[in-house]
């Protein structure tokens, strides 16, 4: 057969091939995947607009889409996202229930001895879920439980080689502070600062600096606390995070008072109040107001 005929035959086969090699079922599977991703993206957009209720509904749909494809790690990620929406809607108990359902899925998958290709995304998803559980526990003031779950999150994160170790270490620091162990808190925050730097996570770098400051404050080291709060303030100002700036300014006020400089302390507290009010950070504004109202030296 001459080259011309071969080319004609090849063209005909190439035109016909998509229908045989790429049947409609495969395309539909890809479309289902696209719907799940689309729902997740829409939910992320809604969350960015702070429309958390809508984000929750869309994340639930996305979780169902992932479950329908037997994509366990994808489903866990979407359930985690639902839990984040619930935390932001101030419904931590429901968030905990979602996290429990994600843990159940993981336990079932583990019993089925999932393949290696499913293992890594699953470990990363679990790192996120367990970290979120630890955050909720820390928010509720349960220091020991928060520390334990942060430890589990770190185990999963190391297995998956995840890129949010700084965040987990910061949470361990927070839990240590809640438990009154300021040395452990400072040590975790130092590690978090290093890890966040490597991961390029500026928000967690600032959080680490603040935890170091809080640890110094808890240890009665006013001067060190002042220096660390200043570092945190510079980072939070660069990130333009109003509530965090208010927290740093309030820390500077307390550290100044520890050093005996009451006038500077009051100026910082007034600035903290103004920033918290402007940023609509009510808890911060109340804390600053209470501090300003109490007599100096208390």
């Amino acid at each position, binding site marked *: 057969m001459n080259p011309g005929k071969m080319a004609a035959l090849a063209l005909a086969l190439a*035109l*016909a091939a998509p229908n045989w090699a*790429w049947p409609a079922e495969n395309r539909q599977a890809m479309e289902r995947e696209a719907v799940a991703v689309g*729902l997740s993206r829409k939910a992320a957009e809604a969350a960015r607009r702070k429309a958390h209720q809508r984000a929750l509904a869309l994340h*639930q*749909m996305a979780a169902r889409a992932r479950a329908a494809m037997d994509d366990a790690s994808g489903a866990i990620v979407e359930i985690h996202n639902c839990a984040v929406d619930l935390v932001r809607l101030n419904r931590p108990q429901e968030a905990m229930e979602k996290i429990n359902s994600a843990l159940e899925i993981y336990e079932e998958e583990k019993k089925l001895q999932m393949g290696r290709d499913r293992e890594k995304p699953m470990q990363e998803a679990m790192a996120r879920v367990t970290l979120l559980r630890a*955050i909720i526990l820390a928010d509720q003031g349960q220091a020991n439980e928060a520390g334990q779950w942060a430890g589990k999150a770190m185990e999963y994160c190391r297995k998956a080689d995840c890129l949010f170790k700084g*965040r987990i270490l910061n949470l361990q620091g927070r839990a240590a502070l809640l438990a009154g162990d300021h040395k452990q808190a400072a040590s975790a925050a130092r590690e978090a600062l290093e890890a966040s730097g490597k991961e390029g996570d500026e928000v967690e770098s600032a959080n680490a600096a603040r935890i170091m400051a809080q640890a110094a404050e808890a240890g009665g080291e006013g001067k060190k606390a002042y220096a660390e709060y200043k570092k945190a303030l510079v980072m939070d100002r660069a990130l333009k995070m109003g509530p965090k700036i208010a927290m740093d300014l309030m820390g500077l006020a307390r550290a100044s008072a520890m050093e005996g400089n009451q006038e500077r302390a009051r100026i910082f507290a007034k600035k903290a109040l103004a920033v918290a009010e402007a940023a609509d950070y009510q808890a911060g504004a109340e804390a600053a107001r209470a501090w300003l109202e109490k007599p100096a030296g208390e």
Partner: protein
Amino acid sequence: MSFYAHTDRRFKGMELRVGLFAVVSLLGGAALLAYVVNRSDFFSPTSAIYFYVKSGEGIKEGMPVKLSGFSIGSVKKQDLTDMSAVEKAHSAGLKGLAVKVTLDIKTRYMDWIPNDSKAFLRKENVIGDQIIEIIPGASPVIMKAKEHIIFAKEKTLNDYFADITEEVKKVQEQAGETIDYVNDPKGEIKKALDNFHKFTVGLVETREKITHAFVTMDSTLGTVNEQVLDLSLKANKAVEDLNMALATTNTSLPRTFGKIDESLEAINRLVEEMQKLVTVMGRDLPEMAAAGMDVTQDAGAVMDSLKNTWPISRNIKPAQGAPMEMESHEPR
């Protein structure tokens, strides 16, 4: 014997070659046709769902139906319907003549439409085509074919302006009523003021009588008695007038305040409408600003199409939904 002798070697086997070429071309054409028909979802099964709307204005047959930005079907048909024959639960409060709009949804997407989902008629963006958008509900029960979907019309800017005009009219009417009420010569406010005026006149008269009484004090006791009697009568009258005035004021003032409250409520409603308008404009203006982003998204869609095309798609890893990032400490 043929007219021309086939002496050229190139004509050898020509009929066979032409025939083979024709067969290959036909096969290729048939394969291409099959591919195009398969790609276009022509034979995909669809499920019809429907809603009722007062006017079919803006809705056209063939109009796309979208869910989360994906085209999942189209408007199949519109029929005029007598709502008296329609179940109350599905009539959406419509009476008389209405339009039944039937949507053709690709059956494989029905799994994403819970039975409490809502359909909206909206523009894709500020200057874009109109579409029917389905917003999924939260019910665990999935909608089935031939079921009713709730239709909710989005308010347009014109609707908001009409609402505001209506509220402004109400405020004007109520303000007019309040002013008329205050100015009414037979009204309670005017009566109260008249009574108060009478009371002050009575007081002046009383003062004059007292003065007169003191001036004539040296006259006879009888005269004084008469004057005192007169004075007490006048004083009693004055006190009665005062009581009447106070009673009228007590009844009329709360009503006046009630009218003022109504006006304030109307103003509050007006402010709320204004806030809604600002929200709508706030929503639409960023959309205009985001027109440029749409171009980028279109480019993304082209890339997505490429990714879905065999054999390119074989080498592309399936996309994953992004996890939401939560800080170690989010101030709340």
